[in-house]
């Protein structure tokens, strides 16, 4: 009898953990993750392998299993391949720029420069502001007759920034770098508090100059945060939508800034082909996952 009740207790403990109250508090979040994240993800995987479209409730139409057909369709679609290439261009510019600029600026702010609080606000305000309104400002700056071209005069690119196939994606990459910078600076500022001052002092005693201290004390000291920044920048960048939708008029010019998420929106929502949209989504999940793992691995090995 006593053995049985002990078994029951063990089973209960296994289910609820050592802190049942704590598990109870965590339950709402678990429900949230399951309903908002896990269920849609599972559903999307299912959709990607079927000939699927949205129907009114009660409408019974066949949605047959089609194997990898949707994946074959999107992988042979030049527009989809171009969208992944465009994201590649974006990440190559945006990710290194984000990591370098945010670390350098955070180090400068941490070093006690004058008006540090003012700079902090200036860096953080773009992050807080809605992308839609900032896009409006950038359009005024970078349109053909905009401020930037007026300043550049004869040096202004032709065609202008946002309608130039070679410059559209780099322009978006710069915009996103600038917009997100404040958040990453904040992450690095927090990390820099954790780098012991003694290390800097002893390095200084050993004759290290400012660059050497930055290179050999600061950079290794915030490596964990660098991984986080890399992964977040890759995820945010790969999910690019608002900027190509608004800043370059729906992935223009001539598809030079089309992104996978813009295509998912067009195919899944506008054109009512959620099956191919889900297949693009799955490919994106795989690409982002691999890139994030690679970022993690490379940083660990260093």
């Amino acid at each position, binding site marked *: 009898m006593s053995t049985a009740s002990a078994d029951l207790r063990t089973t209960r403990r296994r289910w609820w953990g050592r802190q049942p109250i704590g598990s109870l508090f965590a339950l709402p979040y678990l429900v949230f993750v*399951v309903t908002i994240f*896990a*269920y849609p*993800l*599972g*559903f999307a*995987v*299912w*959709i990607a392998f079927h000939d*699927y*479209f*949205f*129907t*009114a*409730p*009660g*409408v*019974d*139409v066949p*949605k047959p299993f089609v194997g990898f057909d949707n994946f074959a369709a999107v992988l042979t679609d030049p*527009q989809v391949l171009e969208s992944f290439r465009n994201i590649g261009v974006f990440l190559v510019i945006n990710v290194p720029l984000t990591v370098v600029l945010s670390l350098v600026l955070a180090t400068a702010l941490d070093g006690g420069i004058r008006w540090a609080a003012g700079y902090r606000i200036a860096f953080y305000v773009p992050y807080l502001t809605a992308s839609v309104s900032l896009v*409006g400002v950038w*359009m*005024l700056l970078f*349109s*053909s*007759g905009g401020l930037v071209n007026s300043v550049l005069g004869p040096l202004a690119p032709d*065609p*202008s920034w*946002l*309608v130039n*196939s070679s410059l559209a994606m780099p322009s978006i990459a710069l915009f996103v770098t600038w917009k997100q910078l404040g958040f990453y600076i904040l992450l690095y500022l927090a990390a820099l508090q954790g780098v012991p001052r003694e290390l800097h002092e002893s390095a200084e005693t050993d004759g290290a100059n400012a660059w050497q201290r930055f290179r050999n004390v600061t950079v290794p000291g915030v490596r964990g945060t660098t991984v986080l920044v890399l992964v977040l920048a890759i995820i945010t960048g790969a999910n690019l939508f608002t900027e190509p939708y608004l800043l370059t*008029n*729906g*992935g*223009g*010019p*001539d*598809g030079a800034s089309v992104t996978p998420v813009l295509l998912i929106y*067009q195919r899944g*929502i*506008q*054109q*009512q*082909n959620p099956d191919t949209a889900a297949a693009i989504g799955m490919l994106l999940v795989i690409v982002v996952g691999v890139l994030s793992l690679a970022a993690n691995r490379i940083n660990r090995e260093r």
Partner: protein
Amino acid sequence: MMHPRLAGTAALLTAVALTAACSSGGGGGDGGTSPSGTGPITVWLSNNEQEVGWGQDVVDAWNAEHPDEEVTAQEIPAGSSSEEAITAAITAGTAPCLVYNISSAAVPGWVRQGGLVNLSQFEDGASYVEERVGEGAQTYLTDDGYYQLPWKSNPVMVMYNKTVFEEAGIDPENPDMATYDDFLAGSRKIVESGAADSAIWPSPTNEFFQPWFDFYPLYLAESGGTPLVEDQAATFDDENGRAVADFWATIYAEGLAPQEASTDDAMSAGTTAMQLAGPWAIASYAESVDVGFMPVPTSDGEAEPVTFADSKNVSMFTACENQATAWEFLKFSTSEESDGKLLEATGQMPLRTDLATTYADYFAANPSYEVFADQAERTGDVPSIPNSVEVWQAFRDAYSSAVIFGKTSVDEFLSGAAETVTGLVQG
């Protein structure tokens, strides 16, 4: 060996995927409710202020006479477009009985979803539509049924700024720009004289519906009303399509129209002299710009060309329980009297054969709208075809590349887009 926590997560994800698979594969039932149901209904209106005002008046008039069949009017829920909000509502089963803002291009997709009621199944359904619209009614057939009631049109014409025209040395009362050659000559005058930075500014953005406001009105005019797709094949890879595409390509190549979207209202700002617009523009620019209207140009200067109707129609949704009430209210709200009130409130043209004569008093009192009443007699619409939105998006992508940005030739665009479009239509 798999870590227990990892195994748990994997099991959870598998369970979720299986649940998703089971729940989405199911369904059942015939999806329809009896068209005989009567009782309260809900209708959605576009968020245009004048249309909402008109809708509320019509609803109030109906409710006063039908206390047991009360109608509630709401604006279409916010979304990046009404089509997206409606698609979501159909999927969720929360669509109202009627929506007064249906674009023909979206109808085939919603029919496939099982979201729309075939109005032809009402005893007087098909006859009501055909009496209202006349011969043009065929355009609105989907799978041999009327899933939309043609309601109102905004025939597209060339709107121009009279002051800018005068500055450029063009007679604003008689611009004489009906042929492509004259239109291009006038456009060059506008830009070269510095009267405006650009002659015309169609939105060069990449949305699927943008062809309706640059290529398509001119194509309908040039071809005498041939739709983009006929008998399950693209029609535009011919001399008409080539003439229109060459015309716009010249406009862009000579810098007469910008390749970028305007950061403000180009007409009000005076940065362009012309726009393609419907009668809604008369009220919109009444305070800011002295505007005139002329028919869209054709290669040989056709005096009475066809143009794009830009119609908005009414559909009934399968989620509606009281479909008999909905049908009666639909007829009530599109009666001669209600249409007259719509015209007065919004300046948009009810889609009916007898427009100019039925509302002769209105057009006598509002002569600026008369030109649109005349144009409304000669309109074409988007064809009701499978994969409609995909077709227009594919067309736009190819047009954008060749005509706006000059990356490919017009011939490549026409043959390539026609092949893609025909492929999509034939499924």
